[in-house]
């Protein structure tokens, strides 16, 4: 029997949220300080939620594994945040943002959630501006916008190439204000290692103080998980090194369903892998696709010569370049959505046209030369420079690029030692964002009462693919404007409960489980480091559960991951002791969870006999290589229920996706 009740409010789409808000139960202000809430994670989602809940008067305990909430992974987001403000007067609206997001998600997202997201998006910008987020402005003092992949309006707000940083610092400053007032107790360098359930409700967590090594019990009336995504299951990704699935996976093991784990976003514009010593991949913001043209040589001999260092990109003539996105998708060109752009790059590299001299010969060019000259010309006209020389045009264009993307160009040069003003950037897709996550209902509550999940850690708003600049939007929407309302509805029943004691058997048992694991790791004395197993897992995931998936590959992956997992538990070596800082022990806990999740991702990918968004099944593609969705059989959310150690036994529950307000179409960007 399924517990999947999405609790989508009745009524017309555009009134659902308002109507729901009007009818939910409230906790009166004088009762709020009788209620404790734990927030795990202080990224955009958790940081904004913790600040808002504290401001409303609840007692908040917030946790993050970094040394400061300001360092959450959200800080790394570069490009921007969407909002349906229609400041540019180009026909944007709540409906259009909703529609683009649903379509971009390949019709695998929940209509009501996405509409709500679009609806509150405009508010997010107002909120952030009032907090002092320095968004880009035009000369009239008004906010500026750029456009992003998959859309034909300019609705993306940005703060240079550091939008995530500025939004997070905004949330962090509001959080700091509440910390200063004593309304939030902040637990830095603490990791949640388990959820505690008392009488069927989430009532606390077990956390480890990463500095002292102490295992601690924390109780609350509700627990909010805002721990981010699980892209690091691939070992190499654009995620911060410490990003992990542990909090989400631990609640999964305690009864929360895990939805659509196979939906992973592979971002098209990352710096290619340099070699075997690599630890992490670096993203080049997607906004660059506004100004850069993507190409590989038309002739395979040119690609080979480039890889061998005998030819340079600049010397390939215009007519010998294959601008394959513009060729295949004339309507959207270089601005097709991420999944489309990524697959197209893979297709060219698989066919032998890759330009990077690495083990896999994978890489394509992102070229700014056309834009530099174009902007140079515009600038010359504006400055009344008649008959400018080519050098003048180049210089003017270059300064335009510098103003817009300067920090990204510097970052690229530091990493690769190439100057992207002179020679095109080299890029290749990399694992970036995870659309799957903990299943939640409309109120953002998981299948465990009292356990809410927000931001990238849940599954709800993106479907099979995420359009650019929508994750930041979702994180802040959840944290500032959705959860604070919906959690009140749940907590209204708890005003007489009183403090939750941490001495109950549930706490004891959960704590013992963690302490036993610590003992196991430290005493196992195996022969291989944690990273060794993580790399093995990552390799299987990238090759067989990556950009192109086949049933055979997935079956192999399931078996191989199982073997790596067994080897891990037999042979892992974790030096050091339990007291004090032990970074290897931290990693061991995280990789143990990735090994289980990885297997579930492959199982989910195998069962979904269709292609959609980030899930591309080679056996479900059209003759010209486009994804082939199967709406008859797969228009549902696949939510998995844990059944004990053998991941193969997880039970699938389905939430049918019902589209009342839009017509489900084949996604085409041609």
């Amino acid at each position, binding site marked *: 029997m399924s517990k999947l009740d999405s609790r989508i409010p009745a009524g017309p789409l555009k009134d659902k949220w308002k109507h729901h808000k009007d009818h939910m139960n409230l906790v009166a202000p004088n009762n709020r300080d009788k209620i404790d809430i734990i927030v795990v994670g202080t990224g955009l989602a958790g940081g904004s939620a913790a600040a808002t809940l504290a*401001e409303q008067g609840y007692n908040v305990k917030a946790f993050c594994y970094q040394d400061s909430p300001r360092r959450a992974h959200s800080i790394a987001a570069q490009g921007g945040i969407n909002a349906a403000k229609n400041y540019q007067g180009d026909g944007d609206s709540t409906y259009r943002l909703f529609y683009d997001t649903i379509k971009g998600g390949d019709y695998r997202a929940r209509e009501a959630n996405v509409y709500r997201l679009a609806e509150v998006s405009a*508010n997010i910008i107002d909120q952030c501006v009032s907090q*002092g987020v320095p968004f880009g*402005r035009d*000369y009239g*003092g008004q906010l500026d916008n750029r456009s992003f992949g998959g859309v034909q309006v300019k609705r993306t707000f940005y703060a240079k190439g550091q939008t995530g940083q500025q939004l997070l610092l905004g949330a962090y400053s509001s959080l700091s204000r509440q910390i200063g007032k004593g309304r939030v107790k902040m637990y830095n360098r603490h990791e949640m290692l388990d959820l505690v359930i008392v009488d069927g409700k989430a009532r606390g967590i077990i956390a480890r103080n990463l500095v002292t090594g102490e295992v601690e019990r924390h109780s609350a009336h509700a627990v909010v998980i805002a721990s981010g995504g699980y892209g690091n299951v691939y070992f190499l990704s654009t995620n911060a090194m410490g990003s992990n699935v542990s909090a989400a996976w631990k609640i999964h093991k305690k009864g929360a369903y895990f939805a659509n784990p196979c939906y992973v976003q592979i971002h098209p514009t990352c710096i290619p892998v340099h070699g075997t010593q690599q*630890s992490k991949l670096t993203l080049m913001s997607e906004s660059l696709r506004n100004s850069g043209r993507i190409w590989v040589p038309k002739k395979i001999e040119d690609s080979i010569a480039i890889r061998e260092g005998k030819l340079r990109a600049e010397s390939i003539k215009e007519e010998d370049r294959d601008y394959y996105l513009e060729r295949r998708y004339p309507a959207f060109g270089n601005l097709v959505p991420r999944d489309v752009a990524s697959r197209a790059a893979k297709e060219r590299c698989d066919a032998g046209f890759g330009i990077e001299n690495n083990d896999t010969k994978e890489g394509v060019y992102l070229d700014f030369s056309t834009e530099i000259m174009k902007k140079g010309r515009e600038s010359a006209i504006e400055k009344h420079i008649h008959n400018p020389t080519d050098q003048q045009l180049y210089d003017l264009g270059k300064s335009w690029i510098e103003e817009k993307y300067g920090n990204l160009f510097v*970052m690229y040069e530091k990493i690769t030692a190439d100057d992207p003003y002179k020679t095109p950037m080299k890029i290749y897709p990399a694992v970036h964002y995870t659309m799957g996550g903990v299943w939640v209902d409309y109120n953002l509550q998981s299948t465990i009462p009292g356990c809410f999940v927000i931001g990238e850690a849940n599954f709800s708003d993106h479907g099979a693919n995420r359009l650019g600049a929508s994750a930041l939007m979702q994180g802040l929407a959840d944290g500032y404007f959705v959860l604070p309302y919906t959690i009140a509805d749940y907590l209204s029943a708890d005003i007489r409960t009183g403090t939750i004691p941490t001495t109950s058997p549930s706490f004891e048992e959960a704590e013992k489980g963690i302490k036993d694991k610590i003992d196991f790791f430290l005493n196992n004395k195996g022969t291989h480091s944690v990273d060794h197993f993580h790399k093995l897992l990552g390799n299987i995931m990238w090759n067989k559960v990556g950009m192109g998936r086949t049933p055979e590959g997935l079956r192999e992956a399931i078996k191989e991951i199982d073997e790596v997992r067994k080897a891990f538990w037999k042979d892992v*070596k974790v*030096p050091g002791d339990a007291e004090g800082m032990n970074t290897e022990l931290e990693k061991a806990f995280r990789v143990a969870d990735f090994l289980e999740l990885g297997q579930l991702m492959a199982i989910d990918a195998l069962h979904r006999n269709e292609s959609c968004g980030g899930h591309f099944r080679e056996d479900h593609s059209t003759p010209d290589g486009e994804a082939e969705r199967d709406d008859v059989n797969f228009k549902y959310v696949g939510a998995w229920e844990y059944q004990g150690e053998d991941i193969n036994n997880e039970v699938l529950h389905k939430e049918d996706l019902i589209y009342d307000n839009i017509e489900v179409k084949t996604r085409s960007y041609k």
Partner: protein
Amino acid sequence: MSAKKGLHLTLKIWRQKNNKSKGQFETYKISDVSTDSSFLEMLDILNENLINEGKEPIAFDHDCREGICGMCSLYINGRAHGPDTGITTCQLHMRMFKDGETIVIEPWRSAAFPVIKDLMVDRSAFDRVMAAGGFISVNTSGNTLDANAIPVPKEDADKAMDAAACIGCGACVATCKNGSAMLFVGAKVSQFALLPQGRIEAKRRVLNMVQAMDEEGFGNCSNTGACEVECPKGISLENIARMNREYMSALVDKG
């Protein structure tokens, strides 16, 4: 790309079990480090070797490895974030080093940043300074003015953005002989002082933040400018000047 070269290096690294114990330098050898690797990847390889030899790996802080989270630190050959300007340690690449070189690696050194272990330090003093006033007192309910109802001159917005780019890494403090946090605090004060939204409580903010900064044990600024040189985000000394102006005028007002 030219053939990749493997570097052979000698590393002198500060090891310290915890805040209570005394630390000392240990010497390690490492070979075949690709010049395309980052500095932190080089430490990863060393750690992998140490683990394989049954030793404890070196603890160091890092997370994003993209130069934005501000978590990585390290004093390398006597310089915060190593021998390059405008970058963090995670962006430092091994092509900056020569084969056979000896590299000295230490934690940030400042009274306000106690060592946690090896190369890791505690920078939570920054958070406490922020909690004392590094914000605009606005509720997070979304019931605010329409964003375009607060026009901001582009020049001011850009300047505010430049100040806001501080990543809170602490290199400024570590490199300053007085252990001053003026660049960090000045950047925050400036960001808000430059925006109309932040002006309203500007005086209160600067007084509170400066007081918290002093209480945390950060030293005074003697205008040597070392902080600006080592700041990975190019935060300019102008921000210290602006903070001083803000502070003086707030004091005058306070009478």
